[in-house]
C-alpha cells in the first residue's frame, strides 16, 4: 500500500472516539482497526451478527463459524456477542451505530454515496451497505481521491446508482480530509506534500477552502 493510503487510514482511525460502536466496511475501511491502540475502548460491529470483533486470524487458527461480513476469519474479545441478522440490522437502523466507514465509487457534494453498482459492469447486489450508509449516525468514506484513470470520485452529482442520498459526513482520501457541508465540499486537512491546488484539480466539484492554516496529516 502506498504511504499516502496508509496515512489516510491512520488519519481515519483518529476520528473514532472512545466508547463508539463502529462498523468498518469491506476493503480499506477494515484496515482502520490496525491503527487503534490495543486497549482503545470501542465496539466493532459486523452485520453478519457480531459485536466486539477481535483480531483477524490465520486460516490454521480460525474458527470456521466465525467470520466478518467480508468473509475474513475474525475472533472474539471479552464481552463479544453473537446475534441474528435481524437484530444486527436493528442495531444499525435504530441509531446504535455511532459511525460507519465505507468505500465509494462516487461521492456527491450533497452527501450522496454510490458504492454498490456500475450498471452493465458490476452489479453483485447491495449487501448491507444501504442500511449502513442511510442509518449510521455518522458516515465516513475512505477512498482514493481519483479512480485508476485519474478521474475524480468527488463530484457535483453522482452518475452511478445511489447507495443512499445525502448520507456522507466526511471523506478521507489519499489527498485530503473533506467534510460534506450544507455549502458542499469543505477542505479540512491536507495529506503531506499535497497542495490545495492539487486537491481542487482532483475534485469534480467546487471545494470550499476555509480561511486560516490547513492542518496536514
Amino acid at each position, binding site marked *: 500500500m502506498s504511504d499516502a493510503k496508509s496515512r489516510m487510514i491512520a488519519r481515519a482511525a483518529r476520528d473514532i472516539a472512545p466508547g463508539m460502536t463502529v462498523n468498518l466496511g469491506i476493503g480499506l475501511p477494515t484496515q482502520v482497526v490496525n491503527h487503534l491502540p490495543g486497549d482503545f475502548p470501542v465496539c466493532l460491529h459486523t452485520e453478519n451478527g457480531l459485536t466486539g470483533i477481535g483480531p483477524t486470524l490465520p486460516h490454521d487458527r480460525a474458527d470456521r463459524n466465525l467470520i466478518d461480513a467480508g468473509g475474513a476469519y475474525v475472533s472474539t474479545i471479552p464481552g463479544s456477542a453473537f446475534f441474528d441478522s435481524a437484530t444486527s440490522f436493528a*442495531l444499525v437502523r435504530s441509531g446504535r451505530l455511532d459511525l460507519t466507514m465505507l468505500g465509494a465509487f462516487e461521492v456527491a457534494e450533497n452527501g450522496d454515496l454510490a458504492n454498490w453498482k456500475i450498471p452493465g459492469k458490476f452489479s453483485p447486489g447491495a449487501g448491507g451497505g444501504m442500511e449502513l450508509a442511510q442509518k449510521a449516525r455518522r458516515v465516513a468514506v475512505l477512498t482514493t481521491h481519483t479512480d485508476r484513470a485519474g478521474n475524480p470520485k468527488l463530484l457535483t452529482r453522482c452518475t452511478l446508482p445511489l447507495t443512499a442520498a445525502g448520507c456522507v459526513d466526511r471523506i478521507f482520501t489519499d489527498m485530503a480530509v473533506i467534510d460534506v457541508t450544507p455549502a458542499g465540499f469543505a477542505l479540512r486537512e491536507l495529506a503531506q506534500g499535497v497542495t490545495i491546488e492539487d486537491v481542487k484539480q482532483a475534485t469534480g466539484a467546487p471545494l470550499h477552502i476555509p480561511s486560516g492554516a490547513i492542518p496536514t496529516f
Partner: protein
Amino acid sequence: MRLPDKTGAIEGAIAAIPDGATIMLGGFGVPGTPFLMIQELVRQNKRDLTIIKNDANETGMGVDHLLVAGCVRRLITTHLGLNANAIRMMNEGTIEVEFCAQGMLAERIRAGGAGLKGFVTDIGIDTEMGRGKQRVEIGGEVAMIETALRADVALLHAAQADTFGNLRFAATARNFSPLMAMAADTVIVEAEEIVTLGTIAPEDVHTPGPFVDHVVHVPNLSEEYAVVRR
C-alpha cells in the same frame, strides 16, 4: 480493543430522566419488572410520564406506586386486570390509557427498536382495536398499519449483566425487555449480578451490550420481586 465500562449508580442514571419522558418498563407481572428503578422514579418525583408496559402490576406494587404518586399522565399497555387502582384512575380520567393487543405492543416496540416506521397486520381488524388505523392493501388483502413505538428511556431488570451491558434474563422475566432494549434512546439496566467481560459467552447473550447505556447493580432486591399477592 476493549469494550467500554457502563456501570454506575442508580440515582444518577435515573436523575437524567426529565419530567414528561416516555419510559418503557420491562416485565410481565412480577418477572422482569424493574421495581427498584420504579421506586427511584417515585423518590425523585418524576412527573407527567408516559409509561409503556405490558401491565400495571398489582395494587401496591411496581407501576402502581407511580400511579398513586401521580407521576403518570399516560399508560400504553395490554392489560390492567390485576390493578383495580389503575382501572379506577382510567375510568375517572386521572390517567390516559391506550390498550394494545399484547403481541401488537411487543411488535410495535420491536419495530421501533428495529428502526422501522411500523408494520402491516390484520390483527384486530374486525374489532374495536382496529378502529382508526390506517388501512393498506397487500396482495389483494386489506390490512392495517401499526406504528412503531420508541421511548426516551427503557428501564429493564436483568439477572446478569457484564460491565459492557451484555444481558441475560431469567426464565419468563425476559418477556418485553430485549425488545425495549432496542427501542429507547437511553437504556438503563438494573442487574442482580454484574460480571466481568467474557463471563457471559458470546453465544449466550440475550441482549447485546451496544443497546445498553447504563448498568446499575441491585444486589439487594426489595420484597416486591418475590411477592405475588393473588
